[in-house]
């Protein structure tokens, strides 16, 4: 049984930011990640981030990821890869599968930063090879250097849909269209503009009717929907594509939290059932914290700040940071967060987050 002061589940931006922040103040941290490389989704982000200098604006996601890893190394943060946390039990006990061994570990404080998984919409032909998640498209192109396909239909116009569409064009593929059942494009206008100007059409109020092909995708049919989301017969349009990319939203991976008994509440704006947490990112179970997409679908920049807040709170609760310094530094992080949770996109999320804080009292 290995004992740690702090265990982070997930070495994405939230987990790494939390580990680095806590380690800075002297906390002994280990980060477990099921993947063979750390960084979560950060290394697949090849675009320059928004925000301001303090939010690492202008830096590309993968470069930010590398700098976090360097910092973690310098601070002596242990990062255990190929390590699947199997369960959280009482009193901070956890089981983790490292390679082929199952180890029992125990932590005084746990941060669960396991991120989110992709939503799906089933349609005839969706099991054909060639139908992939948007995350898969990113992984193939940006991690493994291979085009997922030559002609792609993107289903979903949120930021994932429009950003991945652009990345596919950068990879040398053609994007036949971006469709969305919603009437308005969900992602940032500038992301949409980047692909519109190189000839990618947007078909709003359209959903996918079927994928065609014998052994793999050879085409797709889309259909317009009315105000009640019902398909309108006769509006079918056919696309000759070999790949259909699904980008219809993310939802938090809360299995470990549910096992631990954390209170979850339904917040559609943030992706589904979200763990209630306070301003220190602590859940309804004392000693268990959350940060990043698991606590509500947002962005890498907010994940990093939430990770820092959790790291500070943990350092403080373990006695490494006195009250005044903690409150001061936490406030600094919230000031930084304020900018990101403003504007028409950010404000909604900010309000939803406050609702989650309020749910702690219920």
């Amino acid at each position, binding site marked *: 049984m290995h004992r740690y002061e702090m265990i982070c589940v997930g070495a994405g931006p939230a987990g790494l930011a939390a580990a680095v922040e806590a380690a800075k103040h002297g906390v002994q941290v280990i980060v477990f990640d099921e993947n063979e490389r750390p960084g979560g989704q950060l290394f697949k982000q090849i675009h320059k981030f928004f925000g301001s200098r303090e939010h690492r604006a202008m830096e590309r996601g993968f470069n930010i990821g590398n700098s976090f890893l360097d910092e973690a190394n310098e601070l002596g943060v242990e990062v255990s890869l190929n390590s699947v946390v199997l369960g959280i039990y009482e009193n901070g006990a956890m089981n983790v599968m490292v390679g082929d061994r199952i180890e029992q570990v125990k932590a005084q404080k746990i941060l669960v930063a396991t991120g989110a998984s992709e939503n799906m919409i089933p349609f005839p032909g969706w099991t054909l090879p060639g139908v*992939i998640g948007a995350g898969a498209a990113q992984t193939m192109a940006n991690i*493994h250097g291979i085009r997922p396909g030559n002609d792609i239909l993107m289903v979903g116009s949120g930021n994932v849909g429009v950003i991945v569409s652009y990345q596919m064009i950068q990879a040398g593929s053609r994007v036949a269209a971006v469709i969305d059942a919603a009437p308005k494009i969900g992602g940032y206008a500038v992301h949409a503009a980047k692909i519109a100007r190189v000839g990618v059409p947007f078909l709003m109020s359209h959903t996918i009717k079927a994928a065609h092909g014998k052994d793999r995708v050879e085409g797709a049919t889309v259909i317009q929907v009315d105000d009640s989301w019902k398909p309108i017969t006769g509006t079918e349009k056919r696309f000759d594509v070999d790949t259909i990319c699904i980008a219809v939203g993310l939802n938090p991976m809360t299995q470990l939290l549910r096992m631990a008994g954390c209170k979850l509440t339904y917040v559609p704006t943030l992706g589904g059932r979200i763990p209630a947490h306070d301003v220190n990112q602590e859940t309804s179970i004392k000693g268990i914290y959350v940060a990043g997409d698991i606590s509500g679908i947002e962005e890498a920049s907010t994940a990093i700040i939430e990770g820092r807040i959790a790291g500070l709170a943990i350092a403080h609760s373990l006695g490494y940071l006195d009250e005044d310094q903690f409150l001061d530094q936490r406030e600094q992080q919230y000031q930084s967060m304020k900018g990101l949770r403003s504007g028409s996109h950010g404000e909604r999320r900010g309000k939803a987050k406050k609702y989650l804080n309020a749910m702690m009292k219920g």
Partner: protein
Amino acid sequence: MRIEEHPILGHFEKGPKVQFTFDGKPMEGFEGEPIAIALRSNGVVIHRYTARRNEPRGMFCAIGRCTDCIMVVNGRPNIRTCVEALKSGMVVETQKGKGPEKAME
């Protein structure tokens, strides 16, 4: 299908080129990359056929979670080829249903 020079990422660092077979056909890939990627670079996107309806399945999540990419590798079934690293001489086969009853040692 391989990206030669990526506008942002440049060249992708890969291991040495190695030989393997897919359903008996000789193929090439890079040591250490996921088997599924090596297959895709050779135009192979069908990884298995389902047990009951014999329907084709291929890579879907690409991060080892959905199991649509599982194949028989060196006689062992249910290998998640999107995360399993390619090694020289690997024998990769399309998996039918649950795969062979007895795995080779």
